[in-house]
């Protein structure tokens, strides 16, 4: 798997405060899923992919997989 995707997944574990994460996990099931988590995800995308996400893009995701699909590999 791509190093930067791995780094993003590590960041997501930190942000959501869990030791394991699955692509099918639903975001609303995480205790830490709040507006600060959303902001942290935006920062993480910026760090790992130089990509600027909008809040709407993040909140339109329902699962971890949706978030991973937001990555612009280009």
């Amino acid at each position, binding site marked *: 798997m791509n190093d930067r995707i791995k780094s993003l997944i590590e*960041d997501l574990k*930190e*942000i959501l*405060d869990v030791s394991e994460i699955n692509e099918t996990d639903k975001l609303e099931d995480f205790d830490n899923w709040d507006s*600060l988590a959303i*902001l*942290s995800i935006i*920062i*993480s995308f910026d*760090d790992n992919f130089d990509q600027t996400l909008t809040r709407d893009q993040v909140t339109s995701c329902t699962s971890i997989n949706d978030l991973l699909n937001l990555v612009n590999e280009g």
Partner: protein
Amino acid sequence: MRDRIFITGSTSTIGRELSKHLSINYDLILHSTSSEKAQVLVDSLNPECNAIIFISNFQDLESFEENLIQFLLKEKKPVQHFIHISGFFELRPLRLLKQKDITKVFSINTFSAIIAIQKLVSKKYNVGFKSSVLISSHISCFGAFGTSLYAASKSALDSVAKNLAVELAPIRINTINPGGIRSNSTEEIYQNSDLIDRIEKLYPLGLGAPTYLNGIVSFLISDESSWITGQSYTVDGGRTINLNS
């Protein structure tokens, strides 16, 4: 003979305005990480001003210290004032903080200033040093999301000013703690215009312009403030005293 001021971060948005303003009455040593930007700045200063350029990257503190020493030994002309404008800001929630972030923020924001003052007050390298103004931040005594590292580095400057004010008297050291000023480094936060509006409403006097620190800096390095040392001046349009937020 005009007094000379060593200014770090001179080519930042705030730095440029301050340099232009101070060039009316002072000679300047302009620090930047970019010689192109520094040259453009020199060309825009008051023609009476004698200005020299000093290029250094504060992330390599050892090189900076060495370069500064060599510079001062070669120059042999007194530097009476030091203004520290260099600063690095990045939103960094604790969960995303890495050691390299800590090193970078503290090196640029805090350690570089300590090293610079140390050299400028040493008779081996400089004579006649009178005062220093360090640009801190109005966040230094408050809390906000993703700001622990930045705020700590600025709070450290406030503390350095108090302590060196005691230790180095009659040399005076003060900080200025500005609020939100639209500049290159804050554009990433302010680029969303809804966000700008929301933030602006929290400031009784609105967000700041880059020239808004000129007056207070001039005052603090002049003899008009000769009984003021170890102080931190909040210049933030009233943001931090606003409980309606």
